[in-house]
């Protein structure tokens, strides 16, 4: 491929976004076509890049964006296994979701704006993927944050959506603060921003970072905590479900939230084992907390959101176990099945006139068969039932956990159980049982432009495990490792049978538990049985309340105090001005108009002058 074509991968979506914003606001169909075309073209070009990479001809392109003194900032396109895989995920899943959106968003008054923002997002996400240096990555990191903000707040007329967008952006920014500080620190020590350069230096001198090594790693990890919504910054993701469902699928399930994981893999070389331990535990905690919360959610999209959080926790945990290939593998399969689940949920919501409460659904199996079957495939893949794709990727992570940290392994198994439990809770309540509201009666299968993407994604979810993704990516992280076989259906059971079997057991227990409680349930039986626990879970462990208090104490109260100081300063200025005026008014009283006052003062003044000049 020629070099300009590589640039086009990145800039086609941006171009689409710009053209739509500037010229096509009034032409919804054209804008949709343009947006979809752009992302499809990017996908095709990405396939080209993959071919190039497999041939060993993938280019490294870098322009100097900025050069001031010792600071050199490049704008580059870096293609390796990691970025090629991620490119395909982003553009591939992205294309499917774009196409789905054409149907899902039909009739919305801001149809064109939606596609412009989607294209902008695609551009930003691709920018992260192809970055060859920290700075460029940070730039696109922020842009992704922006597009996420715009898309969550797409229906800005809804106060809840507007609030959610704001919350998402600011929470992300908290992570970005650490990320940026980490970048600056890393640059200050190594003098370079490029991944390759820094990696080279670290290889040459592993003690380069000296005492700051752990700090750098943790600061960089902060970025991932924000973007991938890890504990303790996970609170924004569930709220982000206020955005349109395709947005949730693309951004808040398949791609953007995975960017954190991608970044961790990309800069894996910078982490020390202390960092990795922290990363693993943060991932584990996130996985567990969100899986627990998901058990007691009633909003279909929120359940999926917590599920996403939980799976992201898995991926981050995998990075913490020094297993980036496993993380990337799970990232890919998760992109397939979580996008599928969201789109399926979207299909349901679409059919039920925007109803999202699962306790208003039921028996949709007969009304929406295609959605039903694809959703089932997605659910099973998510639970990790062999031979669906989730099984392979999840087991890779659990195997790594078994090897590194038994406590986290146990935690992982617990999460696997919970995952199956809440997913089948959702599944039973929504698709089986009795209809729980009148809406179900009017439900009907979605149009083909929405169901075909479901089918496509379901297929990918099913066979994702056999695509050889680990095999493709592993050489990048451990070049010395033996070449793995491309097709290995029984691989989980071979590498770590304990993990795989325990995983299957967890799925089985989870399924049975869900069946017992929720098959045919009219309302949630759990709150009645475990009132306190459910209350805590329904309040998401009171994180939002806690943070509201924290923000009030750490930000609003100080701000109020500072504002008072500022008012004090203003008063000081007024006081100065007032003092001058007041002095003038007082001094003016001397001018009584009486000649005698004047002569007296004049003589007194003269006497004073004489006294001071002649006695000194």
């Amino acid at each position: 491929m020629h070099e300009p074509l590589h640039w086009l991968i990145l800039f086609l979506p941006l171009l689409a976004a710009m053209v739509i914003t500037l010229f096509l606001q009034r032409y919804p169909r054209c804008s949709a076509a343009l947006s979809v075309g752009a992302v499809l073209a990017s996908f095709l070009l990405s396939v080209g890049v993959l071919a190039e990479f497999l041939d060993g001809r993938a280019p490294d392109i870098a322009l100097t964006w900025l050069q001031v003194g010792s600071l050199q900032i490049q704008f580059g396109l870096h293609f390796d296994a990691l970025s090629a895989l991620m490119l395909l995920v982003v553009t591939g899943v992205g294309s499917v979701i774009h196409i789905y959106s054409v149907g899902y968003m039909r009739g919305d008054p801001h149809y064109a704006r939606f596609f412009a923002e989607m294209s902008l997002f695609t551009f930003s996400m691709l920018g992260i993927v192809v970055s060859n240096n920290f700075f460029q990555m940070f730039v696109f990191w922020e842009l992704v944050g922006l597009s996420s903000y715009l898309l969550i707040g797409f229906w800005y007329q809804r106060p809840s959506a507007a609030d959610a967008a704001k919350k998402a952006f600011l929470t992300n920014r908290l992570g970005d603060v650490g990320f940026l500080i980490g970048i600056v620190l890393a640059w200050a020590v190594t003098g370079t921003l490029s991944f390759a350069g820094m990696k080279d230096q670290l290889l040459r001198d592993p003690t380069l970072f000296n005492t700051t090594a752990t700090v750098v790693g943790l600061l960089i990890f902060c970025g991932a905590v924000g973007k991938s919504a890890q504990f303790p910054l996970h609170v924004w993701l569930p709220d982000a479900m206020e955005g349109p469902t395709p947005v949730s699928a693309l951004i808040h399930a398949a791609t953007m939230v995975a960017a954190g994981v991608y970044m961790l893999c990309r800069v894996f070389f910078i982490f020390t084992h202390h960092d990795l331990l922290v990363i693993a535990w943060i991932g584990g905690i996130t996985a567990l907390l969100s899986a627990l919360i998901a058990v007691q959610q009633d909003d279909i999209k929120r359940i999926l959101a917590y599920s996403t959080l939980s799976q992201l926790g898995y991926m981050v945990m995998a990075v913490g176990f020094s297993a980036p290939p496993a993380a990337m593998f799970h990232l890919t399969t998760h992109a397939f099945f979580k996008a599928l689940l969201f789109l399926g949920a979207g299909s349901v919501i679409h059919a039920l006139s925007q109803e999202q409460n699962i306790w208003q659904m039921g028996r949709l199996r007969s009304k929406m068969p295609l959605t039903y079957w694809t959703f089932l495939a997605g659910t099973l893949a998510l639970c990790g039932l062999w031979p669906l794709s989730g099984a392979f990727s999840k087991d890779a992570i659990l195997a790594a956990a078994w090897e590194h940290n038994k406590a986290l392994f146990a935690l992982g198994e617990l999460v696997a159980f919970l995952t199956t439990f809440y997913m089948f809770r959702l599944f039973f309540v929504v698709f089986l049982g009795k209809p729980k509201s009148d809406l179900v009666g009017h439900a009907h299968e979605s149009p083909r432009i929405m169901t075909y993407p479901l089918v496509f994604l379901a297929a990918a979810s099913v066979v994702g495990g056999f695509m050889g993704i680990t095999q493709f990516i592993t050489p990048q992280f451990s070049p010395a490792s033996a070449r793995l076989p491309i097709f290995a259906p029984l691989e989980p059971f071979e590498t770590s049978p304990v993990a795989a079997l325990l995983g299957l057991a967890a799925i089985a227990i989870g399924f049975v538990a869900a069946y017992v409680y929720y098959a045919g349930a009219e309302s949630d039986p759990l709150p009645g049985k475990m009132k306190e626990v459910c209350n805590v879970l329904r309040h998401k462990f009171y994180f939002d309340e806690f943070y509201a208090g924290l923000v009030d104490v750490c930000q609003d109260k100080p701000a109020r105090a500072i504002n008072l100081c500022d008012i004090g300063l203003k008063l000081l200025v007024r006081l100065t001005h007032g003092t001058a005026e007041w002095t003038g008014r007082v001094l003016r009283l001397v001018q009584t108009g009486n000649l005698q006052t004047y002569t007296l003062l004049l003589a007194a003044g003269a006497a004073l002058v004489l006294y001071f000049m002649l006695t000194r």
Partner: protein
Amino acid sequence: MSPLTIIFLLPLLTALVLALIPRNFRFSIRGLALLAGLVSMLIAVHAFCKFDGQASPSGFRFEERHAWAPGAGISYHVGADGLNLGLILMGAVVLFAALCVSWRIHTREKEYYILLLLMGGGILGAFASLDLFFFYILHELALVPAFILIGVWGVGKDKNYAAYQITLYLSLGALLVLAGLLAVYLQMPGASRTFDIVELTRYFSAHPMQSGAEHWIFPLLLIGFGILVSLYPFHTWAPLGYGTAPTGAAMIHAGVLKKFGLYGLLRIALPLMPDEAQRWALIIAALGLGNVVLCGAVAMRQRELNMLLGNSSVAHVGFAFLGIASMSLIGFTGAVVVMVAHGFLAALNYALSGYLREELKTLDMDQMGGLLSRLPFIGTVMIMAMMAACGLPGFAGFFGETLVFFGSWHRSEVVTVLAIWGALIVAGVYMLRAIRSIWHGDKQWPGLSDVTNPWRRLPYGLLLAALLVFGCFPRLLTDNIKASVTPVARLMGEEIAGGGSVLKVYGLNSFSPRHPVEDNASGAAVPGGPHR
């Protein structure tokens, strides 16, 4: 004739011509003013494109020099280098935009345009001048117009106080600067005294000022320029002044005039008194942080849009101060980028808030909400502008701010961390809250009208485009800037080599294991970095 001369004389002369036109000829008055602004801007753009710093040995392009008053050491000397080129371009664009958005002014148009042109032309001339006399008086040309503009066309019950406050406060700063500049001038031996900045710089780099004099001259300049730039704690004039000023005046004042002080510090105070500047670096940094963090926090509490924008604008110049306080090439470059970027940004923000004020008759954010659906164009542009204000990449300010972070890290980690907090979080909080309460939400607004006429959209588009262009292609600015600030940075760098005084001053470097000077060895070649 140098294009710089035309750029600033054209608005000034047009103001004179307007004075001769009868006040009923509204169309001609506005047309002529716009034409002058347009031509001035086009020449500025042309000069910006044609600029190549290498062309002359002195580093200045478009130089023009005439003897003016040799007896007093005054000459007419204009020239551009990377330091002021961007500012001139920014000033010219903002002036034109300010003239464009003034179409809503219907009372006493003639005086309004005359005063606006005087203000804009004056400050452009001040940026172009390489002679302290013209540098000073052309800036002061704005003092009276600003007073009258706020007083006559201003909005709000506090406008009288605001007009007085801005005038008195700024004149205090200007007079301190004047005293400082005169003191610098007097430091030269009697016969060779000159106000020429180039010669002053040359003289003082060969004969460093005696430190006794430096000790009081630098503070004079710092506080004087600081007042002009609303350095914490001398900032209280800014939000109120801008908040009450008519849109065009607020744009020029907040966007362009405010940069004068920073420009003065970089152009005069630092190169002439590098040692003293080093000694004050920590204080400058602390005050800059005051701007960024404290004024940012104040902005969070504001419920009036213009007060919020005013405090935000005060907060942003803090980054330029931090860049200056870093005393490094990267920091200086960042500071200048911040200056240019903030010029466009502040002008854009005030242009938009002015439109809102006209439409809504209030800027109380508690009464707004849901405006985006009624005002899609203004809303979209303002959301972009507000995003730019919280340091989003793609807008010019981002590069300035990050360069400042990179530059100041070696000086003080604590300062940098706080600055990053201020840039990403504090700014994010108040801007997003503002977007939330103004544009988002479900309030209905019948009867509002958006800007639909492409001509009316022009000024907003122009400013936004400028922000985006420099945000995406920062080298347009930085390549020129770094060439021009390299000598200044070198002056500072030699200090590091000489006594290592810098680290002692900051005393905060324990965190970073390696010294910046050594880092350069492993990094790319450093044209202007510190030398050993």
